[in-house]
Structures are given as C-alpha cells and as structure tokens.
C-alpha cells in the first residue's frame, strides 16, 4: 500500500534530502508517494503545516520552536524528529561595505572574530545604519548573525537594521539597493556574489561549526497518530541523506535541485555549497570548506535536545520570549530523538546514546558512545569558544554581558 505524503519546502539547496528522497526512489522504496509543495515564504510554509494542508515541512529550526511557544501567529505543538542538514548559511555584504574589511576573503572568512570587529568599524564608516536582510526573525541565520555581531559589541537591534525578506527576493533587493547585505541559505548568497553585487563576509560553519539549520517538522498530534508512516519516511530520508553526502552524487543532485519546480537556479551555483567550494568574490578562486553543509555524516540528522534548547536560549537572549522553566521544557521537547531512535533502530545508521550534549565542546573529531556503528562527532565549536550546557541556561545567558 502506498502512502501519499505532502511536504512543504522553500527553494533552497538544503531541500536536498527531500528532493533526493522524492527523485531517487528512496521514498518509493518505503511505500511513500512524496509530493513536495513549493512555498515562497516561511509564513506560508508554516500555515500549510499548522492548518494541515501538508503533513510535514522543511522548517527553520527556530521557527518550529517559536510556533510551539506561540510566538509566530497561530500556536501549534510541532515536533521535529529529524534534522535535514546542519550549516549552509553565508553572510554577504555589498562590495562597498566589504571594502572596509580584510581584503583577503579566505582570511576574512577564517577569522570570524576579527571580521566581526572589522565589521563594527565598517558600520562607523558607512553613511547610515547598514540594512541587513535576514530570512526570518525565527531563523538560524538571524540567531547566528545576532550572536556574531554581538561578539564585537554591535547591538543587532540598534546598530544595524535587520530587514526580513524571503531568500528568493534577497538578490533583487540587493540590486535595488534596498539592503546592504544579507544572510541566507544557499544558493542565494552565491547568486549575489556571482552577480557581482556582494561578497562573502562570514560563513555559518565558521560561526558555529555544527549549526542547527532545517528540521523536518510535523504537527505533534499527527506525528503521534502515525508512527508507522513517520518511521518509513525517516528511513527514506536517512538513505537519501547518505546519498546527498556522497560527493560522487553532487553533480546529479545539483542538476535535480536546479529544476524549475525546486530551486530554479543554475546547477553550478547550487553545486558550490554541496561540494564546499565557495566563491567569496566574483571571479576569484573558491575558498574550500568541506563542512559547508552536512546531510548525513556525524549523525547530522539526529535531533539533539540540547540544540533545541540552545535555540531557546537565544530567543530569551534577544527578548523574543520570557524565560521560565515551562517554556524551556516545551522548547526542548520540540526535538524528538525518541522518534528518531524508534524509526532507525534497525538500520545501519549510527545512533548516539545520549539525547543531550554540551554544545560547542568538541575541538577535534571525537568518537562517542553509539548504540550501533561507529559514530564520530565533528568539531562543533562556537567561534568565541563559549560552551552551552543545556542544564545551565541561566548561567550561559548571564555570560553575555552587558545586559544580554
């Protein structure tokens, strides 16, 4: 018996696992007829999920937390048992603005702390507050940008203007001079670089080396009522993710994503993020970053509860939600490692033994306890060296002086 499933997505390179599951037969092997529903705004993707037009959605991890906490229109309990990727964002700024930063782009990107301070100085040289596009208030990009700016004493709510616009409009807004730069998922940063409108200033992977990005979100009641379908889908996605990580498939994957019904951008732009060959300034040689975007290795899809709590800590930090124990528990419970374990129990996927960990504590690849197979966690440092202990959210927040 075939199950029809609808999943909403946005035209982004990190829809890769969903597209591969649909196009390469992984969903079909599990008896799932997958229909991917393209959306052009996070609001519409959210509404399609919350009001039941789709069964699941490729969602910004912070948005899943925010909807559950009632911070983004109609409150709804969402559940994320699977991460579709980690990393994959890039901050690009207009070339005029970037002229005040380290001119060697490879060095600029490799030193986010130094670049943040240069950025603070560049704000002083700019004619007005720089307008930076972010894709959503509740996006990983926005939280990472805020984290990075604040490290150099920049107040993201006062010293810059953060303008919300969907990824697909970022390049046009740059062209029209409505924004001075933006942080978005690929291929939109690369598209602006290629058009000669902007150059790379920072890369998500250099801010938090294993940053939570998109999750697969369900309405929680539906997830609970349909364990068999959820498990089959997760198994299909796990195989699709392994396929996406394999560099031998990147050319095919880029061609698939380039189709009009998915990302509708040139395959060579899309391929950059997949292979980690990022062109930071038009016409220059790419800056290699093999961890630019991960789909499968290092148990990437595993939804660590500590990561949902890190997101929560940042929402508190930026006064988007009042901190209390009940809200924290609700936020942490959005990530569902229990469902992930159940679905993939009999597969060869490496399975972490724990559901929480310190975030930002791993410097070098680290072999950890795993129920099955070898599991090595990659380095997951924040660029400023802070470590997030999910048991001590207040202490962590108190460390961000002054006031924040």
């Amino acid at each position: 018996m075939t199950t029809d499933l609808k999943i909403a997505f946005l035209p982004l390179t990190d829809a890769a696992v969903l597209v591969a599951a649909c196009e390469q037969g992984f969903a079909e092997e599990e008896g799932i007829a997958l229909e991917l529903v393209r959306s052009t705004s996070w609001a519409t993707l959210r509404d399609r999920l919350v009001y039941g037009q789709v069964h699941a959605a490729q969602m910004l991890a912070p948005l899943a937390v925010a909807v559950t906490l009632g911070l983004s229109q109609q409150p709804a309990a969402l559940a994320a048992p699977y991460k579709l990727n980690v990393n994959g964002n890039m901050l690009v700024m207009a070339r005029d603005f970037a002229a005040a930063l380290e001119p060697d782009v490879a060095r600029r990107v490799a030193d986010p702390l130094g670049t943040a301070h240069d950025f603070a100085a560049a704000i002083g040289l700019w004619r007005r507050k720089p307008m930076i596009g972010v894709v959503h208030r509740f996006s990983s990009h926005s939280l990472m940008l805020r984290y990075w700016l604040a490290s150099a004493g920049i107040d993201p709510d006062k010293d810059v203007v953060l303008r919300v616009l969907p990824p697909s409009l970022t390049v046009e807004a740059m062209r029209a001079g409505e924004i001075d730069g933006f942080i978005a998922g690929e291929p939109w940063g690369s598209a602006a670089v290629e058009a000669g409108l902007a150059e790379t200033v920072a890369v998500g992977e250099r801010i938090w080396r294993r940053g939570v990005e998109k999750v697969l979100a369900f309405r929680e009641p539906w997830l609970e009522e349909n364990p068999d379908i959820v498990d089959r889908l997760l198994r299909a996605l796990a195989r699709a993710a392994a396929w996406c990580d394999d560099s031998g498939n990147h050319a095919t994957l880029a061609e698939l994503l380039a189709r009009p019904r998915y990302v509708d951008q040139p395959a060579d732009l899309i391929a950059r993020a997949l292979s980690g060959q990022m062109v930071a300034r038009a016409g220059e040689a790419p800056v290699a970053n093999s961890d630019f975007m991960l789909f499968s290795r290092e148990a990437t899809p595993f939804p660590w509860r500590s990561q949902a709590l890190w997101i929560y800590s940042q929402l508190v930090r930026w006064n988007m939600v009042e901190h209390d124990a009940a809200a924290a528990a609700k936020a942490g419970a959005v990530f569902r490692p229990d469902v992930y374990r159940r679905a993939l129990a009999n597969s060869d996927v490496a399975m972490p033994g724990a559901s929480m960990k310190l975030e930002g504590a791993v410097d070098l690849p680290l072999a950890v306890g795993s129920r099955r197979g070898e599991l090595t966690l990659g380095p997951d440092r924040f660029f400023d060296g802070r470590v997030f202990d999910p048991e001590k959210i207040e202490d962590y927040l108190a460390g961000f002086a002054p006031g924040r």
Partner: protein
Amino acid sequence: MRIVIIDDSGLRATVLEEGLREAGYDDIHIVPPRGAFVARLERMAPDVVLMDLGSPSRDTLEEMLTVSRALARPIAMFVDQSDEAMIGAAIDAGVSAYVVDGLRKERVKPVLELAVRRFNAFAKIQGELDEARTALSERKIIDRAKSILMNQRSLSEQDAYALLRSAAMNQGKKIVEVAQALITASELLGGGGL
C-alpha cells in the same frame, strides 16, 4: 473598516476590490508589495489586511506586524481560530488575512468570505487564460508542422493534417507532440518550409 489589499497582480486586486465595493465597503486601498510598502501600510493603519498566500512578501509583512510601534493595536492572522472551515477555505483559496485586535468576528467574516470567493474566481479566470494560451501555442505548432508537410510532400492542408493525426493515433501521442517532433526533426535536417 479600512481594508488594505497587498497584491502585485493588478487583475486579482481589482477583482477583489470590485467585490468589496459592491458589498458596500468603501475604504479600500491597494498596495503592491514593493519597496517601502511596509512603511506605507503602517501609515494607513488598516483594520484588515488581505494578501495572497503565495506572495513571498508575507514574512516581511509579519515582521512589521510584530515590531511596529506605529500600529495602535496588534494585528494577527485570521480573527476566529475556532472557525476551522473558514480558515481551511481561505488557505485553499490562497487568502491570508490579518485583522486588527478587537474587531468583532461577525464584521470580519463577510470580508473573508468575499475574499475567498473572489480569489477563487480569479484563479478560475487565470486558469482559463492559461488554457487559452496553451491552446493558441499548440495551434501554432500544428500549423507549422502542416506547412512543412505541405511544402516538402506537396500535400494539401487537409491531407497534411490527416497525416499528422494518423501518425499521432498510431504512436498513441497527441497531435501537438507529433507536430513538435516533426518541427524539431526538420530543423535538425535543415529542412525548408519554416
């Protein structure tokens, strides 16, 4: 009640505005989601904002609704969350509606229902236009294929069409597909008659 329609399709906005005016609403403004539309909207202080669900500018609008200090009262999506049938119909029709806090739901419901009907009507017109356009382009393809056959095989127009039709029937294809294949082949072979 001040109603703002945010829309970049002139036709859809007109279809909706007409309907609202006929129903007796007269404080209606159309704002295209371009440039500084959020600032314009803020100054208008609307009671109801109607927007195409497919518009990529919804995130920008929602951000304004969240952070605006200029709006006297908060505006949130839909007014009556208990009316699931209404919300379902709105989303199916591609309508998103933001309503100012405190506006009674009985006053909003007719606006929303009208928007849903008009959006559906617009989608139907759009569909018919697309169909007509497709039919027109198919007709052109068939005409080109016919003229190739007429030139190269000295057939009458009627016989050329009959040949295309029987080829399509034999191959289990549409006539337009056979015609397109013929044009492509003829172009590849550098044939005349184009």
